[in-house]
């Protein structure tokens, strides 16, 4: 059974003008968000995006952008408490959940 998360929340954007159709985003996406259509990438399943950032990192022309980060409540709370970015707690503190 395929899990679905909240609709219309992700920050994933694709600039078709910059896309050269290399297909790298299709290769790295773990949720098959992209599809190649007449030599250009298209977003097929934008709500399936988990903002891991693999596509943007591996896009040679910076056609894909996303605010990448860990979708982990414990990490966000831990980060807020320490005043840092979301962090799974390398020291072991606050590591009860997340990043298994």
């Amino acid at each position: 059974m395929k899990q679905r998360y909240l609709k219309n929340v992700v920050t994933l954007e694709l600039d078709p003008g910059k896309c050269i159709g290399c297909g790298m985003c299709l290769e790295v996406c773990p949720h098959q968000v992209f599809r190649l259509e007449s030599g250009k990438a298209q977003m097929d399943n934008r709500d399936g995006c988990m903002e891991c950032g693999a596509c943007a990192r591996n896009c040679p022309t910076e056609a894909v952008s996303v605010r990448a980060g860990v979708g982990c409540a414990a990490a966000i709370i831990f980060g807020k408490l320490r005043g840092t970015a979301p962090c799974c707690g390398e020291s072991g503190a606050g590591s009860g959940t997340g990043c298994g």
Partner: protein
Amino acid sequence: MEDSNKIQAAPCCGTDNSKNKGTCTCTLSNMDTVKSAFPIIGSINTPAGIVPQIATRLTFQDILDTWKARWDINRMDYRILPGLYAVGLPDSKSPVLVSANYKMSFDRLRQELGGLNLWILVLDTKGINVWCAAGKGTFGTNELVNRIALSRLAEVVAHRRLILPQLGAPGVAAHEVLRLSGFKVVYGPVRAADIVKYLNNGLKADTGMREVRFGFKDRLVLTPVELTGALKPALIVLGLLLIINIIFHGSLAVFQVLSRTLTDFLPFLGTAIVGAFLVPALLPYIPGRALAWKGWLLGLLWIGAYLWFLIPSRNWMHASAYLLILPPLASYLAMNFTGATTYTSLSGVLTEMKVAIPAQIISVGLGVLLLIAKWTVLGP
């Protein structure tokens, strides 16, 4: 003893890069780490020095280590030394796989490689698995390019291709690695179990290999960490309940005080099991999308059932207090499972937290006030 001699000649010792150039001698503590981490069964001579050869069969100790990590025992200190390793009898034409130095990731990979001849380049991800390390950037372009240089990989193999786990892609820019090191990165399958098929396929991953799954078993193995995470707050609650019972029923026999405490603890224990175990296990079958919601809903059902079936003399203040306090606790625990899922985005989690956290705090606060009011009027 023979093993440690071979390890001593291994090209890579620890995480201090300055010591890794050329040959080096490992300190005793490093050797201990290696020995306890996984069995080295031999060594391979290469133009870049001696490379340790590793076993592809897991020992009982390896399986025990995995089990311990699943229960959060030494989970954050479960690493192997970074560097180049050999599987079978690889040569200059053998493929190179790249992995993290989280031992569970490494074990998962090597147990699939029986009968193959290849190299594994282990990056220093500070003992974190590939996906989380890629998210942090430790499984990243810089570490990969550095590790290629430190292990003198270009002298060991004649080709210029690296096979990375697909889940390493958030941290590695393939085009940058090519520019900086001359090695071409190709992304292999998500799961180590598919690696042999991928190699036999001529390095082609089918759609199934590219997709992250999150089935019942995948979720279930993650619940022990959630349960141990809930243990500490649960023990604090147990302690508080004991203190309250001593204050109000101190005149009773010790046995009676303890039995009352445990009875009071039951709804909390159930809530912890609902939030940390039942919600992850039943995740796709619980209606709604936000995890905080799913936890609240199941928590409400549990407390409803508890009050209905197990508390014969229902007092409305008592019942309302429980309905206000406990479902938000289940909601909070379930919300924390977002870190273990493979499909929740940062934006999505922030969106649900914006509503869930204030709601949880207000609900618990009101419940506690109601409980105090009830104690003041009627006693516990």
